[in-house]
């Protein structure tokens, strides 16, 4: 019984890490631009496809694949900022949100049109093999441990970046008051470009980590819809919040899928997020500051 619970817990944590990664992408963009990137899931999918291409067609090793996917996606992210988002810089958040929805449509459509990608499901080979580790009666795949480990490392790096690096702070400053950022000599447009590159890179990384768990598919991006509640649950704009939110949702889903009737698993995430928001309207780690008048 305990073993089984532990098993479910680990499965949930691994799945939760994936949600957390996608949620992180959301939070990053939000922290730096105050917009919600609805194309985050699709960017992740695109990153996974680039990784897939590098791994299967070019035959590159896993680490090179990751690097390749991140680089390509970062460039795409910056390109998107330059071409599509810069013209609406300074417009209300909702305008930008609608643009990201449009970007999502375009990416999903393009992927189905690329020969070799199409609408089939692909598997991405990983170097972690099929090994398992046994902890107290639970069986955990090495793959899952790798996912958890890499997520943790990325989160730590990003957290430090936003807390201490001048550029990281400048990104937040830009989102909070663009005008003041200009007055301080922060190159707002360049900072914005970097944030989109960064977030697309994180999306690619997430896509590749996700590949062994969820397979590479053109609808893989819809996982973004699960990551939303994760990001909100933790408190939008908080890096640790994205992780905690992702983990909670992963674990809840894992247990709900086992213990509750069919169908509950899919809505569990949403029920949880509604329940938490009722108690804490800004999520678990969300800032509760109110406007000063």
């Amino acid at each position, binding site marked *: 019984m305990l073993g089984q619970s532990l098993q479910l817990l680990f499965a949930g944590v691994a799945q939760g890490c994936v949600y957390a990664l996608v949620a992180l992408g959301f939070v990053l963009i939000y922290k730096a631009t105050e917009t919600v990137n609805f194309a985050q899931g699709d960017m992740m999918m695109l990153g996974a496809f680039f990784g897939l291409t590098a791994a299967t067609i070019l035959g590159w090793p896993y680490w090179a694949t990751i690097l390749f996917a991140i680089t390509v996606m970062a460039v795409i992210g910056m390109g998107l900022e330059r071409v599509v988002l810069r013209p609406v810089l300074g417009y209300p958040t909702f305008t930008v949100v609608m643009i990201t929805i449009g970007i999502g449509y375009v990416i999903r459509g393009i992927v189905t049109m690329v020969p070799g990608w199409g609408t089939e499901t692909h598997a991405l080979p990983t170097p972690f093999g099929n090994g398992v580790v046994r902890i107290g009666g639970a069986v955990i795949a090495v793959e899952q441990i790798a996912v958890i480990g890499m997520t943790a490392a990325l989160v730590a790096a990003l957290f430090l970046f936003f807390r201490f690096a001048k550029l990281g*702070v400048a990104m*937040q400053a830009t989102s909070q008051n663009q005008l*003041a950022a200009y007055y301080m000599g922060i190159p707002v447009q360049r900072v914005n470009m970097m944030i989109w590159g960064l977030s697309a890179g994180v999306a690619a990384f997430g896509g590749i980590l996700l590949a062994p768990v969820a397979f590479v598919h053109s609808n893989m991006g819809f996982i973004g819809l699960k990551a939303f509640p994760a990001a909100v649950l933790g408190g939008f704009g908080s890096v640790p919040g994205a992780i905690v939110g992702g983990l909670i949702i992963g674990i809840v889903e894992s247990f709900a899928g086992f213990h509750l009737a069919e169908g509950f698993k899919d809505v569990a995430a949403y029920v949880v997020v509604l329940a938490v928001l009722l108690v804490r309207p800004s999520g678990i780690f969300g800032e509760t500051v109110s406007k000063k008048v």
Partner: protein
Amino acid sequence: MGAVLELANVESSYGPVQALRGVSLTVPEGKIVTVLGANGAGKTTTLKTISGIIAPRKGQVKFRGEEIQGRAPDRIVRAGLVQVPEGREVFPLLSVEDNLRMGAYTRRDADGVAQDLAMVFGYFPILRERARQEAGQLSGGQQQMLAIARALLARPSVVLMDEPSLGLSPKLTKEIFDIILRINRERGVTILLVEQNAHMALKVADYGYVLEVGRIVMEDTGARLAEKEDIREFYLGMKSGGVRGERRWKRKKLWR
């Protein structure tokens, strides 16, 4: 001493509304120049046009002989020209200290920044006390101090100040003007000052312009402007009661 900042026939507008109708003014190196004018005369627009927040429709803005109109604001800051915006333009969710660090965004000399940080904490001890607090939680006046301190951290050679005394207590207003004089005298910083408190502004200014409805209508040294009848009446609030009495009677009638 040459002119560090020159505006020639600058016209700016918000959409179809023209706010500046050909403003020309000169700010000499190392001086304090003030621009007086009623609300809506275009003072803030003038400053925003200089710092690149608004692109002028016509005319030139020259900074050290180089035309800077239409340039991105961050490049203008890098050139050494920083504006202290009116009101509470702080980064509300960053700590006070991070706000100040952002002021020094364009600088690479860590030691100099640390020195200047100590200096502004000396000017405004309350900011040191609140260094870890989110700037959005400061009171209105404290945010104003933060905005001024933050601009000083960029170590600019020219500062544009938009209503530095807005919402500050009489004591702090005096202190702010002392600080303005000090950075001007001790560090040779050139200052272009826009201020409702014309008393204070004319006291510290070497030279003054009067802006009305988007045009410069008068200019002279600070001391001479303070002597002029019109200035005394409209900007310093020293006027005879006769005109007022009449208006008052009219107002009563309108209300009933």
